[in-house]
């Protein structure tokens, strides 16, 4: 789960990181009032869940109240990579003497939290990684000992050679960010940039935090941070129905048990020249209600011209699954054709049940996918 810059900075502030003051406005009037509160000059920053806000014109320096009015009205409502700006963060504009990147993520190779930092602050780290990988310093943090003073200071000194006071501020920021990362169950936490003003004081002026979805259960407060407006409505419904779902642009609605098989099914649709409308893992259950929920979500998308079930009956028996699908399709009116492929335990029994319905049965994945594409027209 991703959150906005202003929310990330609230988490940073709670862990003692030096975050400048700032508040969110949803109207030009509010933005002007906040500029008055914090004092000019201010930054007006679009709050959208995507990168590249600056390039898109979504982050503006405002010297006067007229600047604030002009920029806030331009930015509010702006579209940035498909995201509509509904909020701007108003925060004092600081004089930047130097800027740095400090970030952390889960590293699969070291199986640790990986600290990354760079004197190339303010740029997207992926870009730095591509153009100048040697400019990124990395340290996998040993979870048993945490980020030690000397480790953080060594990195700080590499980023600010000969400037021990700045190096110490960077080191402290790294340690606080690590504490925040763990406490928040983050999967990513970035300060970008961490700047120094000409007086040598450090500030975390922009940041990003993503939460580990697996750890949501121990952070009841995170649901309140979710920007429901920024979420695709169908993905939101799927989340609320506890379904693993991703919306796509095609016309073949897919219901598959298992994430790997679901991806392989999408790939196969594409292979045969079709376009999947979604990723959806309905899991191992044969519960008709879950199927109903999934169908409802998929069928909201008027582009969907066919439904494709691809079910591998492992522990769950195919006849049970067939009964579940049949019940579900009886509980609602569906005016697109439905292809069902059932394989595995008790597959013959399952197919026998389907034979009595108007569902289109298939024996193999390939047959099912080809049938679905043909029916989609």
């Amino acid at each position, binding site marked *: 789960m991703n959150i906005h810059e202003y929310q990330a900075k609230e988490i940073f502030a709670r862990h003692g990181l030096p975050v400048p003051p700032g508040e969110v406005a949803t109207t030009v009037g509010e933005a002007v009032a906040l500029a008055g509160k914090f004092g000019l000059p201010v930054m007006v920053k679009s709050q959208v869940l995507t990168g590249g806000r600056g390039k898109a014109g979504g982050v503006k320096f405002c010297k006067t109240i007229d600047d604030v009015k002009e920029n806030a009205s331009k930015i509010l409502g702006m579209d940035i990579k498909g995201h509509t700006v509904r909020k701007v963060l108003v925060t004092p504009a600081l004089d930047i003497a130097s800027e740095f990147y400090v970030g952390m993520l889960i590293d699969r190779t070291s*199986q640790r939290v990986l600290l990354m930092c760079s004197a190339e602050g303010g740029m997207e780290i*992926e870009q730095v990684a591509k153009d100048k990988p040697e400019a990124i310093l990395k340290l996998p943090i040993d979870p048993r000992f945490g980020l030690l003073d000397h480790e953080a200071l060594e990195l700080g000194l590499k980023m600010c050679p000969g400037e021990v006071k700045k190096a110490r501020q960077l080191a402290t920021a790294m340690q606080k960010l690590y504490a925040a990362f763990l406490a928040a*169950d983050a999967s990513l936490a970035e300060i970008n940039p961490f700047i120094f003003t000409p007086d040598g004081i450090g500030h975390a002026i922009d940041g990003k935090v993503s939460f580990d979805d*697996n750890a949501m*259960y121990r952070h009841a407060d995170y649901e309140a941070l979710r920007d429901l407006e920024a979420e695709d409505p169908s993905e939101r419904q799927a989340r609320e129905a506890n379904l693993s779902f*991703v919306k796509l642009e095609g016309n073949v609605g897919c219901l598959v048990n298992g994430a790997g*098989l679901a991806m392989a099914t999408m790939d196969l649709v594409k*292979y045969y020249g079709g376009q999947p409308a979604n990723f959806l893992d309905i899991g191992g259950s044969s519960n008709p209600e879950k199927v109903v929920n999934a169908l409802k979500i998929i069928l909201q998308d008027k582009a969907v011209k066919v439904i494709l079930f691809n079910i591998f009956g492992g522990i769950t028996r195919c006849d049970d699954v067939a009964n579940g699908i049949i019940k579900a399709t009886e509980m609602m009116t569906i005016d697109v054709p439905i292809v069902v492929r059932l*394989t595995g335990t008790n597959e013959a029994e399952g197919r026998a049940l389907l034979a009595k319905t108007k569902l289109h049965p298939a024996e193999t994945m390939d047959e099912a996918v080809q049938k679905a594409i043909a029916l989609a027209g």
Partner: protein
Amino acid sequence: MAIFVDKDTRVVVQGITGRDGGFHTSEMMAYGTKVVAGCTPGRGGQKFQDKVPVFDTVREAVANEGANTSVIFVPPAGAAGAIMEAADAGCKLVVCITEGVPTVDMVRVMPYLKERGVRLVGPNCPGLLAPGIAKLGILPASIVKEGPVGLVSRSGTLTYEVVYQLTAAGLGQTTCLGIGGDPIIGTNFLDAIEAFNADPATEAFVMIGEIGGDAEEKAAAYIKAHVKKPVVSFIAGQTAPPGKRMGHAGAIVSGGTGTAAEKKRALNDAGIPVAERPMDIVPQLKSIWKR
């Protein structure tokens, strides 16, 4: 023969009294797996299906029943703790089926296991099934068959699909292993491939990868350097959009890395055929395998 398990594998099931734990324990026992104990705190002294003694702690299960392997079905909040308990009690193989374990918990678990020399499979995995030897986890026994092929996969049902096709084509398996779909897992492709390569019974093997991370690339490099046995691969998620988690916590293309295209290229560069469709895996394996 098989990898990671043998006839001396003695299983304790953590969470045996739960719904899933109980169901799959029955299935494992039905397959002939030596399930010697269960563990649920507060249920010590009970018996599972009037046969298998249940203990409060894994330590008791090890002490009283000689368990050396744990299969874990506890809910996500307790899974990391259950893994550490099993390791601390002396189990040398731990299979964690549980899906949804917080990643930071797994970061803490890994060094604990390393210090104790414990192999973990999973979490968020179907476990492993060595036909004719033992079933540890939830892989359906009905689709496997004894034979010379090894199979390792990050997926669940996609694995079943491939096993089903292998069996249908008369190709039995030494071990079918689902390593799990999370970013941090105990046993990765490399570990599995090293084991399959060293296992004399495994004559050829199949590796089923998916988007996210670079475990497939590392495996490819290892296979190129060390493996003479025939290998065929498949990568799921070519059509997955970037930045979206495709069910598995680990199945995500981020910052332009972990794409299916990259993985296919690495595998092809290592001389490993990558099947375009799941149904192509078996024919491709047969075509390169001079039996």
